């Protein structure tokens, strides 16, 4: 469709409706939290962010997001490859399952992990603790951010022509070398975008990690769980400061995403 100039009253009214809706829904709440957090000065926010509990919580958030990104990047690439290049019965169903985390309530994910790995769980571990500790939180984070890498690189893989790969084979390269030197450079951009999305989603998760990890202070507490606790304990400055920090982090990720999206999809084809 072609862009037009805004002429006449109707388009102007409609545009105003769209912009006012976005401003009231998205911008007003953000303005409210920023002004509340900084009402007592920047110093208080910085102090609130440097508390040991907060630093521990952010450390947990980062490690979980990093771990989930690593697992979902490796396994998600394999999954996308199998879904695009292999044929097997029930492929449609398998493909549909990839989207399950989008509609699976995070609380239920956490609950399933407790049922599996809790003390009386199906696979109750004897050596290491999984439920109410970081391993269950990592599993929860992997679950909620599972679709992104696969869904980003699937269409890119499907568009690849096989000529270059076949040329590589003809020249004596094995599968792994061909994948590394021919396929990866072509899907790299989509992969990176999927990784950023995975990270962003992981940083923001609350319900699944809170239930799976039990939300134990300083032990299984992420940044979002800290905000929840601070709201409960009537510690507004802590809640608002960490919320603003998470918000700034998210906006940073968003900027990276939009920079990635603007670049052409096949930068280094060979």
């Amino acid at each position: 469709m072609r862009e037009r100039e805004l002429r006449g009253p109707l388009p102007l009214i409609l545009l105003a409706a769209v912009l006012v809706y976005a401003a009231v829904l998205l911008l007003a709440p953000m303005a409210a939290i920023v002004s509340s957090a900084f009402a007592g000065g920047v110093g208080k926010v910085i102090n609130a962010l440097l508390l040991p509990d907060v630093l521990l919580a952010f450390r947990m958030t980062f490690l979980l997001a990093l771990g989930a990104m690593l697992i979902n990047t490796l396994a998600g690439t394999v999954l996308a490859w199998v879904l695009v290049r292999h044929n097997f019965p029930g492929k449609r169903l398998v493909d549909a399952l990839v989207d399950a985390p989008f509609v699976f309530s995070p609380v239920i994910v956490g609950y399933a992990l407790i049922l599996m790995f809790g003390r009386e769980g199906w696979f109750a571990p004897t050596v290491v603790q999984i439920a109410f500790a970081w391993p269950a939180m990592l599993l929860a984070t992997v679950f909620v951010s599972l679709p992104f890498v696969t869904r980003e690189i699937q269409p890119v893989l499907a568009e690849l022509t096989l000529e270059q790969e076949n040329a590589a084979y003809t020249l004596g390269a094995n599968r792994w070398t061909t994948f590394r030197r021919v396929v990866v450079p072509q899907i790299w951009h989509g992969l990176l975008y999927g990784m950023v999305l995975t990270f962003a989603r992981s940083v923001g998760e609350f319900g699944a990690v809170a239930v799976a990890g039990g939300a134990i202070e300083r032990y299984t507490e992420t940044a979002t769980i800290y905000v929840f606790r601070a709201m409960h304990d009537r510690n507004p400055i802590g809640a608002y400061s960490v919320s603003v920090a998470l918000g700034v982090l998210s906006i940073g990720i968003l900027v990276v995403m939009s920079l990635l999206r603007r670049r052409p999809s096949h930068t280094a084809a060979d």
Partner: protein
Amino acid sequence: MNAIAAPRGPRSGRWGSWGLRLAAFSYLGLFIVVPLVVISVQGFRDGLATFVSSVTKPAALSAIGLTIWTAAVMAVINTIMGTLTAYMLVSYRFPGKALFNMLIDLPFAIPSLVTGVMLVLLYGPQTAIGGFFEKRLGFPIVFAPPGIVLALLFISYPFVIRTVQPVLMQMEANQQEAAHTLGASPWTTFRRVIFPTIRPAIITGGLLSFARAMGEFGSVIVVAGNIPMRSQTAAVYIYGQIESGSTQAASGVSVVLLFLAFTITLSVDFFLRRRDART
């Protein structure tokens, strides 16, 4: 999707290919199928009668009902505003459009718990706006259903826009111009030419945002609190039952919630497939 014949390398063999497939299936099986099975089995472990009685308790029924109607109200508003937003973004030039286009993804990036905190700050009972609504109009926003709808609108904002926008962008400009030249008003052009093309995308975006919103937890628990029979959604109800250790109630409602979400997702899939078959 068309199958592509996989190129066979010199030493490819079938083992490597089976290994990859095994890895992909274990990944999906471990992370998605096993939790699904565990929840379903747990929900029906003590028999169908126990399951039915666990989900027909007044608090459980009220939570499921609240979840469905708040998500439905959100889906209607979000579908209308999202379609309009996508249409304005694609068809008109206006200053600040690039920035606005970027802002749309904001709810994807902002943690939903933070969304809840922001809404409490803006519309809570102690604030100017929230106080006005509650005291003057007798209509509380926070800790009540309107807050839930607002939170769901915030987190679902990009869904319809981002499904409709690409379809509009691919539309042929000349179809529209032809309608115009033949004397159709902009409204007729929209109704007869543009709307039929984007209708599948609108329905998909709306239904998927509905399915996703039913499971929303982080923003809702902050905005709505945990008041049984009044502002407790199904996800918050499940959370409360887990905290108090009643696994039967938690599993029962989980099964219902998952069933609803998957039914909607699968019907979207079915709807799209039928359409693909037709064209």
